[in-house]
């Protein structure tokens, strides 16, 4: 291969130009996303921030828009998230540990694996129908928080399992060997070395899963969450509503005042979501710092 100096120079310029071109393209792509988010935030804030107040958070829904609040929906969402996490995390993490650390690698586990991946892509309304049939009717839980959170737990379970499996897979095999070599049983290897090392990664997956759950509306409508709730739930068997449904309800009203309420509701929902994510990220960074010294 012969390359003349002049030819090389010319090509080099072309190569550099291509590189610059792709950087611009990448920045533009990022910009579209950020701009869309910014427009949304600005628009929402302008419309709804005036409505966000202690009274708004602490009032039940009302026919008069200026007196309506999100107390019932906010409490419903908090209950819902707590129960969903309580069901989805132990089952999801447990399934991931079994599949990664214990299950033999054969056709059966491959089938299960493929199905979990498929379940992650099933539309949420389908889970709603499943929840309605299984929890509300067959198990006679009624249109309760328990039925809702079990449905939501099913919905996010594949995400928790897949993310936890990724985190476990990222733990180097040498750590397992080291633990086995000093006479640890498989359970000791898993519980004292592998899971602690995978915990930050698992947390990331759990954050993602719960973030998805907090915004889901369709399955909750299917389950029959209420549209107008003048009380906060006292226990898991109570009827309930959640923030997205309250927002949906307000946004569908013809009066402009209710739309302002919807915007304010969205601001509260986003605030809850971001607080949850921030807490989880701080927790994860702490764990990571501990394992890196």
């Amino acid at each position, binding site marked *: 291969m012969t390359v003349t100096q002049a030819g090389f120079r010319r090509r080099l310029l072309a190569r550099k130009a291509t590189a610059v071109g792709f950087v611009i393209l990448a920045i533009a792509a990022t910009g579209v996303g950020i701009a869309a988010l910014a427009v949304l935030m600005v628009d929402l804030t302008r419309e709804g921030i005036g409505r966000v107040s202690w009274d708004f958070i602490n009032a039940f829904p009302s026919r008069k828009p200026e007196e309506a609040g999100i107390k019932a929906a906010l409490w419903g969402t908090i209950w819902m998230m707590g129960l969903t996490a309580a069901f989805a995390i132990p089952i999801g993490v447990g399934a991931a540990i079994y599949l990664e650390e214990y299950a033999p690698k054969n056709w059966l586990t491959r089938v299960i694996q493929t199905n979990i991946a498929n379940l992650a892509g099933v539309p949420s309304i389908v889970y709603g129908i499943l929840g309605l049939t299984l929890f509300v009717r067959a198990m006679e839980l009624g249109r309760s928080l328990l039925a809702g959170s079990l449905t939501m737990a099913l919905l996010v379970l594949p995400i928790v399992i897949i993310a936890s499996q990724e985190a476990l897979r990222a733990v*180097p095999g*040498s750590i397992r*060997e*080291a*633990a086995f*070599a*000093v*006479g640890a049983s498989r359970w000791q290897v898993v519980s004292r070395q592998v899971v602690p090392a995978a915990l930050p990664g698992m947390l990331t997956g759990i954050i993602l899963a719960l973030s998805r759950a907090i915004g889901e509306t369709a399955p909750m409508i299917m389950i029959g969450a209420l549209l107008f709730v003048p009380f906060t739930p006292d226990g898991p068997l109570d009827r309930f509503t959640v923030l997205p449904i309250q927002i949906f309800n307000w946004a569908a009203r013809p009066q402009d005042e209710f739309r302002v309420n919807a915007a304010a509701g969205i601001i509260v929902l986003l605030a809850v979501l971001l607080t949850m994510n921030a807490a989880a990220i701080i927790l994860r960074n702490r764990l990571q710092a501990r394992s890196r*010294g």
Partner: protein
Amino acid sequence: MIRERLQEIANERPVVAPAQRDAEPMSAPAAAETVAEARHLSVWYGDFQALRDVSLSVLGRRITAIIGPSGCGKSTLIRCFNRMNDLIPGFRTDGEVQFEGRNIYARGVDPVEVRRRIGMVFQKPNPFPKSISENVAFGARVNGYVGRLDEIVERALRQAALWDEVKDKLHKNALTLSGGQQQRLCIARALAIEPEVILMDEPCSALDPVATLKIEDLMRDLIRSYAIVIVTHNMQQAARVADYSAVMMMAPDRAGEMIECGLTREVFTNPTDKRTEDYITGRFG
């Protein structure tokens, strides 16, 4: 020419001061007595035969080196002594590995029990991403050791010649140590459960020459109380540290075979197999 080279390599072996060998603790295995033994051991991974009819005695308070070219089954062999290969799917054996009067591959033998008695140090330092003391104490903890853990940690770190370097930072993360220190920490971790035999699978291959020499000194020190088996593809290292050497080769079907075994000096200066001579002098491998 070849003879000279062999002589040269053999001479790298340091003379161990007799006084050093006198200070033998009572609990240590009797010197030069077989503590573990592979008998006609064959190993398969699925359909692939990795070892064929290998026999090797591990002697108490002696260092046994397993040498040979890449892929000849050295690691497979050493990992048979603490049943680490059990973790690999498709692994099966024929023949026996005797330890404390029984075949460790017999039915009813728990590999966890075997690994508590036969410790291991790996090729790449693999400390847990936890504090230095937690690393050392882990084995004692999982095995339900009764006693003061901090005493166990100090004793093991002293034995591994690491105590003075880390005594002020026992609660620091083990990953902050240098590679050589990490490997000595891994040795300390293996020592903390007071095994009978320590297996070392190329313990110096990821280390610089200074750290390597430190580990080798440490090994000569440790055989006052332990039997050591070391896998190495570094001929000089075998010559420097090992009392006994076993040479392995790959058969045409890629199964590992043992072609020579004996006193290191004998193996290096007077090999019985032509392939040993070729390998040691660097003609191949």
